[in-house]
């Protein structure tokens, strides 16, 4: 009884196509479910694996090694005086954050279909809870960056204090497309096969393995239509400073595209969400 004491007295009305005014309030009320789902995903992540949590270190580290070899040593791209491994890793961090949010959130609604067809809760919780898992992995990866910077004796400038802001931006960039794709996968299962493809393509279309300074100036603004370009540039700027300057008009364009994606994601998710149980 006590649990329901703070339930608002307003009446719930169920009707076709009715925009639920209580939705955002509900989202807040179900915050515990959000944390519990996130905790569940973290808890079961490395169950029954041999090296367990070490995976969180191995994966980003190996990717960094491969990228450094391929882009830095074989393709001999310039790092503008920054150790190539640090350059690559600074780009890899936001990209990994993006790709795990996008990848996990896309399949999250489908993999929680048993919940969705049996219980009501604001469906946004499901894709959003994958963000927590991605953030934890990100924190682990960040510790590798610290080690790397110590190893190469790279001292960050004052910009490093802006890093949390860019982490937040990277999350916003990921959430928009992730929500859209989560909603689309429910409707068209084919889209599941498109997601890994987008991620693979995006990895090379974004300046992860190289600095965006090598893009010809006349293409630079266009290149920033990919919102990850602005974010990755920002990360590099924070970490290695002036040697890797941020390109302001491009960055602003990235912000606009991010906002657009975010709106599209939330709008399309909210639109299809009501029919999830029927489609699953």
């Amino acid at each position, binding site marked *: 009884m006590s649990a*329901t004491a703070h339930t608002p007295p307003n009446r719930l*009305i*169920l009707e*076709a196509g009715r925009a639920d005014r209580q939705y955002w309030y509900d989202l807040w009320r179900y915050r*515990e479910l959000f944390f519990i789902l996130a905790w569940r995903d973290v808890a079961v992540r490395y169950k029954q694996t041999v090296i367990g949590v070490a995976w969180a270190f191995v994966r980003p580290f190996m990717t960094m090694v491969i990228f450094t070899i391929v882009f830095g040593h074989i393709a001999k791209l310039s790092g503008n005086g920054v150790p190539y491994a640090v350059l690559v890793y600074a780009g890899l961090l936001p990209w990994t954050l993006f790709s795990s949010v996008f990848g996990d959130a896309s399949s999250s609604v489908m993999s929680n279909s048993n919940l969705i067809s049996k219980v*009501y*809760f604001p469906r946004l919780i499901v894709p959003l809870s994958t963000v927590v898992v991605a953030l934890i992995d990100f924190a682990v990866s960040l510790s590798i960056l610290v080690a790397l910077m110590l190893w190469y004796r790279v001292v960050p400038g004052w910009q490093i204090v802006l890093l949390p802001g860019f982490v937040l931006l990277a999350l916003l960039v990921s959430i928009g497309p992730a929500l859209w794709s989560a909603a689309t996968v429910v409707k068209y299962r084919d889209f599941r096969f498109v997601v890994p493809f987008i991620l693979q393509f995006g990895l090379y279309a974004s300046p992860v393995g190289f600095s965006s300074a090598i893009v010809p100036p006349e293409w630079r603004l266009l290149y920033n239509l990919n919102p990850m370009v602005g974010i990755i540039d920002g990360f590099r700027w924070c970490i290695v400073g002036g040697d890797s300057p941020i390109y302001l008009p491009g960055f602003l364009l990235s912000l606009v595209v991010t906002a657009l994606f975010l709106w599209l994601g939330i709008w399309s998710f909210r639109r299809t969400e009501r029919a999830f149980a*029927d489609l699953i």
Partner: protein
Amino acid sequence: MTDTVIHAEGVGKKFIIGHRVEQHALFRDAMVNGVRRFFSMGKSVLKGSGGIAGDEFEEFWALRDVNFEIKRGELVSIIGHNGAGKSTLLKILSRITEPTAGRIEIDGRVTSLLEVGTGFHPELTGRENVFLNGAILGMTRVEVRRRFDEIVAFAGVEKFIDTPVKRYSVGMYARLAFAVAAHLEAEILVIDEVLAVGDAEFQARCLDRMSEVANSGRTVLFVSHNLAAVTALTRRALVLRAGQLTFDGPVQAALSHYTSSLGKSAQRLHWGRGGDSTLISADLLDETGKPTERFVPGTPLSVRVVVETTGMPGLCIELTMRDELNLPIAFYSAGIFNHVSLPTEIGRFECTITLEPMLLAAGQYAIDVATSFTNVHADHVVDNAVRFFVETCSPGKISFNFRQSLGTGSLAMTLTKPIEFKPLPAASTS
């Protein structure tokens, strides 16, 4: 108006079902149609009006124009055949899907229990799953923590609470899952078929717990195929048939409405065939000779069987009655007991087997119908061909409902002459 908690008006739910209709004889046609379909799919994807790779679409109303009102503290059951729309109605009430038509107003917080153990994760321990499941069902962590010991004790899994649930037996898993659900604190509780878990003893405890919940002043909506549970728990019932509300009233009247509609609408599965005989249908009949699902203890038990035969001599009909645990409790063989065989000519025949009255305990029963060569070799066996239930069984004059769930068997024994106590000389002490 103040104590109406649910008010439904003209509620309908439409589904679009896709059929694959085309049968292409020519590969060329298939190619052309494939390409055409690809483009039209592309168009509908862009428009956001979904179509999956099915071709023809048909509208199907799972619910249509349903109106009802439920008052605070009422216990209402929803009964109907498979596909009558019960689950759809519950899903709408619990906000899992939204209605296509009509409107429902709800005062208060609805907690739905459409399945026990929703979201249980096999890798997590019992303790972790209790918290996970609790959160999914809308409990806060504080609430779960407060009732945790109660939940574990109810499930009887104290020893294994820190073991991953994938190591649990099916029974333990189900018990833990139900235990969480049983300790929900909700204003309006919506329950679907959750009693179908665990052993008989646990089911009885679940029923007790449910009536406790029901009697604590909460509003409960209950869907079940267990008609005995329906009568035990609720006073009022809504009967759904093919998506429409056909009856709304006291549970006893609802049950007779429900069972009387059976003969008309019963959808029989194809029972397959035997070697020399094929059972077509079997029904329990009431005293007027109409098919029913309800048996009144102490009245003759009549089963009508329709059978086809090749005229093979020596074939006879056998009935095996089973209780809720699916254990055989009674047997009848027309061949062995009465030397009655099927006619020795080809054709389809109907017969009614009327058996002596039995005082069957309240609960569910099923009868397997078989044809066999004098109990030596079965020809066509149909398990659970007839299902029926007994609502109340009061063998004596006092009102006591003798139920299967008491665990004291399924047949009440009766006296043929009164019990007399004759005084005997006191036993000698030597």
